[in-house]
């Protein structure tokens, strides 16, 4: 028998899509039945009380969580988010309900052996409810009490060889697409760069020293499966410099209808016969492709690698071999001055172990931002306040037309004194010799 009546939430058990309400109920029952005889370290009815509290929010149209204050593990400034409910008498099981962020393996592959151990720990010491995964990328464990935090951390680090993730004004848990592990478009090993950068910057991840949060995300190609250009302060997107490789026989295969365009992504509708002229050549945004009825050519110098033709004919067209990545800086959600995408800082960087070229860019940016950034100012805002030119200066990167969508439309250039022949110091008396008062 359910501890609390939840007539509103029950309506979210209908419909085909997986119901989180059914799942929480299943977990509530599991905890009561306790088939494995677990000595639960937080209240057995935590799931019932979460449903009860949530039902109350569904009635009131208002949240019943309070901000948590500072809780965490010794020596770390992030990884735990404190959370208390505002109805502790009614719902004591969730009176204290802190989130634990656990570092996920890059690309989010798991063995069941490892995943089961993680679940056993959370079953024993937490609510048994998780997010697979949080929006930043880490494993999010929803709800435990303060005395459990050090114990969870102990077991994670000693028995599972796993650390907490980041929260607060520090480096957040980095994330990458699955990259070369299963994607033919990947221009570099996203998982490996992700892992290397995560290990290199453990101190920045666990101990807040930044003006505000900082996120790394790694996409293997311009398709952007982890959305790095929109969601990370430091976005690395795979690219190449040489020619798209063409397998002419395979192109003919698409033209003749032997292969489905776009790997079959459009199979649910009759879009008519594949038309290479219309669907590939005419949609190429740079107009750099041509088709003479039997042969496809690409003027590679004019291609800007948007991926359309490759996505459309993956058997026939392949990314080039001179590979690396572009780096974009400063993406953030709209608050406060409006949303920002990452702006291109480094058009091409080689991405090879030990990734020194990438690390150098990050470290130069951090040195500057930690010096100049205001409290709670994302680096994208610092760049806007201090100028793109300033970012070029601190990273030692030369201005390049690739840095802009178009040149400025106003001539209000802030010339520096050293740029102007003879400097700014002049003698008014000398001037007056040429011009009367």
């Amino acid at each position, binding site marked *: 028998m359910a501890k609390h009546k939840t007539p509103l939430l029950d309506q979210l058990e209908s*419909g085909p899509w*997986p119901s989180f309400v059914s799942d929480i109920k299943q977990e509530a029952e599991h905890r009561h039945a306790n088939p494995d005889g677990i000595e639960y370290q937080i209240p057995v009815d935590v799931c019932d009380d979460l449903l009860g509290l949530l039902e109350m929010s569904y009635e009131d149209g208002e949240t019943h969580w309070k901000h948590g204050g500072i809780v965490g593990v010794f020596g770390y400034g992030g990884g735990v988010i404190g959370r208390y409910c505002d109805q502790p008498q009614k719902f004591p099981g969730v009176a204290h309900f802190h989130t634990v962020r656990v570092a996920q393996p890059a690309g989010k592959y798991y063995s069941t052996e490892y995943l089961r151990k993680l679940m056993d720990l959370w079953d024993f010491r937490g609510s048994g409810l998780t997010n697979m995964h949080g929006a930043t990328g880490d494993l999010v464990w929803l709800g435990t009490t303060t005395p459990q935090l050090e114990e969870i951390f102990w077991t994670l680090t000693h028995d599972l060889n796993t650390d907490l993730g980041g929260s607060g004004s520090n480096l957040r848990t980095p994330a990458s697409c699955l990259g070369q592990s299963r994607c*033919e478009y990947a221009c570099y090993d996203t998982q490996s760069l992700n892992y290397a950068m995560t290990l290199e910057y453990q101190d920045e991840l666990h101990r807040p020293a930044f003006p505000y949060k900082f996120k790394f995300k790694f996409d293997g190609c311009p398709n*952007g499966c982890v959305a790095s250009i929109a969601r990370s302060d430091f976005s690395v997107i795979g690219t190449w410099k040489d020619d798209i490789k063409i397998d002419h026989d395979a192109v003919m295969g698409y033209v003749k209808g032997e292969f489905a365009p776009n790997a079959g992504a459009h199979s649910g509708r009759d879009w008519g016969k594949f038309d290479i002229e219309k669907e590939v050549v005419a949609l190429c945004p740079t107009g750099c492709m041509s088709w003479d009825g039997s042969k496809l050519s690409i003027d590679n110098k004019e291609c800007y690698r948007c991926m359309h033709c490759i996505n459309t004919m993956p058997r026939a067209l392949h990314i080039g071999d001179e590979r690396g990545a572009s780096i974009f800086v400063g993406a*953030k959600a709209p608050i406060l001055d409006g949303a920002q995408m990452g702006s291109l800082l480094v058009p091409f960087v080689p991405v090879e172990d030990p990734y020194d070229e990438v690390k150098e860019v990050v470290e130069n940016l951090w040195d500057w931002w930690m010096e100049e950034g205001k409290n709670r100012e994302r680096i994208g805002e610092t760049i806007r306040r201090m100028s793109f030119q300033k970012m070029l200066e601190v990273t030692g990167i030369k201005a390049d037309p690739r840095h802009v969508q178009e040149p400025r439309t106003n001539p209000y250039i802030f010339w520096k004194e050293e740029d102007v022949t003879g400097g700014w110091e002049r003698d008014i008396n000398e001037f007056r010799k040429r011009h009367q008062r």
Partner: protein
Amino acid sequence: MAFISAGYNPDKPMEGRISDIGPRKFDEFYPPVIARNKGKWLYHEIVEPGILMHKAESGEEVYTVRCGGARLVSVTHVREICDIADKFSGGFVRFTTRNNIEFMVESKDEALKLKAELNSRKFAAGSHKFPVGGTGAGITNIVHTQGWVHCHTPATDASGTVKVVMDEVFAEFGAHNMPAPLRISMACCLNMCGAVHCSDIAILGYHRKPPLIDHEYLDNLCEIPLAVAACPTGAIRPSKTEINGKTVNSVAIKNERCMFCGNCYTMCPSLPLSDKEGDGLVIMAGGKISNRISNPKFSKVVVAFIPNEPPRWPTLAKVVRQIVDAYAKDARKYERLGDWAERIGWERFFEKCDLEFTEHLIDDFRDPAYYTWRQTTNFKW
């Protein structure tokens, strides 16, 4: 419920402490076929909705079966995922950025069996546990945030609104009948933890009433300077108020400056802003991340306000349906929702989606606003 220690000694926190070890290394968890062919994949094919085949230079193939799920999952549910992975995919499984689950097997036969198995599993009340889909030109799973389940500033629930919208577009999740991929995201307040601002359709919780001020307790519970500093628009200033004949330190808020972000509440529990009538949803549309054909772009606000209607948010589901159907009917093959709206013009977008355009949709927030007004005679009737 006796407390059981794992080994941590609170008197000597540094004793035996291990820290700064990071995540487990990714390649410990590669299925063997992935380990053997990493970096040597040639091409892929979507065999049918929910099943991908990747072909390697070696000639080997890996079949990935992708299924959706709620982001909020229990340990019991994850153990069921493990059971399936043990039975079918050699004890390996992966999760995608959009909260889907992927099992990798080595033949089409096994993939089809697995798909049938996944589609057959249901929760006690009848919803699917592991619906297969989320590939190609369809609608995949929604990325979202915490909502009423676990945050202090939400203006709506995340899991509930997501469930309702995914129920609505369930057929599109398991099919390839959109002109191009359609990505939906959800964030429950304007902080946008989920960074929904570049999605084909974004659902965003929004408050519309400034914080209440709990004058009587504020000075005891909050650091006033921190609350003042927390406000991004400078709407809060320190002030004094009379309570029961006593003068107390508190704050005053310039309501017309408030943008309803809840940052002050994060700093000061005496400034709550949730409100049943005030809170609701904003719908944004036309953003994208990929560089394919057109540049990445931001989503635009197309519906200024939809009230919270828990538990099933019928107006939300209806509006999403209108946009999805108008797009599916009218857009060209490969055309993302934002590219379609730009080609036909936003005036036409509102007409085709049967959405009302109101003055709230004209930007008036800081510098970039001007660049969104129309400065040309090129508009349509």
